[in-house]
């Protein structure tokens, strides 16, 4: 390996300090040239993974450790990043090898083997298995308590294969959550000693909004040869294909009312009848559904069957929009920057402080997907610069954040964001910040109050107030006029 190449980074976990230090020395020898981070207290695995986000290429762990076992470390790593390979390095012989490989370990090295002969080989094999998965396999990046609560709930859901309904705006990562529900279930089954395989427990996803009614029916339940024009052979539907795994039905509210009846029957009876068939087939997959529409309202309006809603909504997960978890924006943006640097083989870039503030003050209607695209765009247009600046962002973000922002403005903006969040929460919960029993503020009153506060904080500078409100200046003028706000 030449010196210019980035060293592969190994996180080595063992409770024996001498073993850690000497193994580190072997692996960092120019013959192997790894960068090795050592950890003797396995309870701190999560902290170390978070501190070294994306730097670690492989984790090598002992099994028998006093505070947190290697098996727990394996679980923790897989929770953190399902694509980060783990090698078990143990003196306990091969007795647990099959079990650990089934649990996701990518390698197994006995301490009786010479480290310098066995470990680098296992590391290279494990790293070659590391796939850069985009989409469903991506790791979660979050600091916000709301997101943590959602993921805690996902962990709890592993024990029972109840149907799950995931609600959230577009781009909030509903499919990531669905995949996590699937993964946690498999982990639970493995721990319980069940034989789990990709073949018997697949993850199958269907977007109910992407297909016509006929095609969707056939895709969901399958069809017999000759059931309709072009059906030249029997075809299993996704209910059958998902076997004992997870069937994810995205955009469930787009389902036609007729198909809703059939889906309800499939969920209730645990069997499906393919199009053109007379005999039902039993099905076993867990069903996870998702929607970005207000499903309860659709039920009230008669556009979504209430009985189906209650059937799919045994457990409900509400994914918060990105604007409600501002604390997640910076770590996400930085993780995307690292991903792009790796993908395009460039030096990593950093966000300037104004760029960070600009990202955190934007409303992100497209949520994480929009943030991802914004970072990719700025990365692509930023040339060879080492920093990502506000000017690199799309106009809807950069134009709202003028270059004359001083540090005072950033402070102002941050305090204003808090106020915005408070107000939004109040609106969502249907209460006023100052609501009393005698007076419940109307929407118009709240908006007017909000604008007045923005003007006050911007000391009457309308362009600045407009930026704070994430609206353009003309709209602010119209609102000032509408609410007759004196300026």
């Amino acid at each position, binding site marked *: 390996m030449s010196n210019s190449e980035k060293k592969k980074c190994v996180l080595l976990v063992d*409770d024996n300090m001498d073993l850690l*230090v*000497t193994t580190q020395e072997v692996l960092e020898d120019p013959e192997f040239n790894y960068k090795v981070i050592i950890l003797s207290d396995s309870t701190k695995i999560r902290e170390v993974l978070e501190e070294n986000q994306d730097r670690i290429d492989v984790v090598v762990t002992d099994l028998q450790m*006093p*505070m947190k076992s290697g098996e727990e470390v394996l679980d923790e790593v897989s929770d953190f990043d399902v694509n980060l390979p783990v090698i078990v390095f143990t*003196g306990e012989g091969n007795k647990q090898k099959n079990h650990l490989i089934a649990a996701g370990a990518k390698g197994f090295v006995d*301490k009786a083997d010479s*480290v310098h002969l066995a470990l680098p080989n296992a590391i290279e094999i494990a790293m070659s298995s590391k796939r850069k998965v985009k989409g469903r396999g991506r790791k979660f990046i979050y600091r916000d308590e709301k997101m943590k609560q959602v993921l805690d709930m996902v962990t709890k859901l592993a024990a029972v294969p109840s149907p799950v309904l995931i609600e959230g705006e577009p781009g909030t990562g509903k499919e990531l959550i669905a995949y996590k529900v699937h993964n946690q279930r498999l982990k639970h089954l493995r721990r319980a000693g069940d034989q789990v395989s990709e073949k018997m427990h697949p993850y199958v996803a269907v977007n109910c909004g992407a297909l016509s009614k006929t095609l969707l029916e056939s895709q969901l339940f399958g069809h017999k040869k000759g059931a309709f024009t072009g059906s030249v052979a029997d075809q299993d539907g996704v209910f059958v294909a998902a076997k004992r795994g997870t069937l994810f039905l995205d955009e469930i509210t787009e389902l036609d009312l007729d198909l809703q009846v059939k889906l309800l029957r499939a969920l209730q009876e645990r069997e499906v009848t393919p199009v053109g068939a007379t005999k039902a087939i039993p099905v076993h997959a867990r069903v996870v559904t998702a929607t970005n529409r207000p499903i309860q309202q659709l039920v009230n309006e008669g556009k979504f069957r209430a009985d189906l809603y209650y059937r799919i909504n045994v457990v409900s997960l509400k994914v918060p929009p990105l604007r409600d978890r501002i604390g997640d924006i910076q770590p996400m943006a930085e993780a995307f920057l690292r991903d792009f640097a790796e993908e395009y083989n460039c030096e990593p870039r950093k966000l300037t402080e104004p760029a960070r503030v600009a990202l955190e003050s934007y409303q992100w209607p497209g949520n994480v997907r929009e943030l991802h695209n914004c970072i990719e765009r700025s990365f692509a247009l930023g040339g060879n610069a080492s920093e990502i600046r506000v000017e690199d962002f799309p106009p809807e973000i950069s134009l709202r954040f003028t270059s004359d922002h001083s540090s005072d403005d950033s402070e102002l903006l941050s305090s204003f964001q808090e106020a915005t969040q408070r107000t939004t929460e109040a609106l969502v919960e249907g209460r006023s910040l100052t609501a009393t029993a005698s007076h419940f503020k109307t929407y118009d009153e709240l908006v007017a109050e909000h604008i007045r506060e923005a003007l006050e904080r911007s000391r009457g500078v309308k362009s600045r107030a407009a930026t704070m409100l994430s609206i353009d200046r003309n709209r602010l003028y119209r609102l000032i006029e509408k609410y007759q706000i004196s300026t």
Partner: protein
Amino acid sequence: MSLDNISAEENQDPDGQIGTLDSYRLLFQVIPQLIHQLKNHLTVVQNAHFSMKKALEMGQHDRLERSSELGILGVQRAEMVIKTISLLESMDTQSILSHYQKRYSNSEVEIEYPHQSPIIDRFLAPLVCSLEYLRPRMIKGSLIIISVNESRIVIEQHGEGEVVAPPELNDLMSKFYRFIPADKGWGIENCGE
């Protein structure tokens, strides 16, 4: 020999306590743990050997010195583990506890235990199991006091750090003994008492 047969031999002991053969077998339940430790120390020795070789090739004197020190330490620790195994075979309670005292003091943890107590002999296997379990969990400067309280043994942990909860006994050991959690450690009792 099945577990039932092992239990049956208990009756052959005149005072109704665990027979010598059973104690011997129970003591050997600790052997896999000791082999695990031995492998760790041998890995350190192998690693040190690799680094010494490289250091010699590259003329790195500091690295050579550091690696040889770690290698020697690894050999010494491996020797201690091997000695533990051979002492377990002797079943000499006082020698075994004295050896553990030395091993613990290498980690800056002290052990106090009663000398020449016939009761302690009857608890040798769970005592060794407890000491093996505690060793990596104790922080420097701690003190472990082993005492006899009527017909049971009590292991107390003193010093900074949280009191470690007792380990789970394996199937064979739990046929004969039980661990009773206490404020500062745990008591060990015969199952029949």
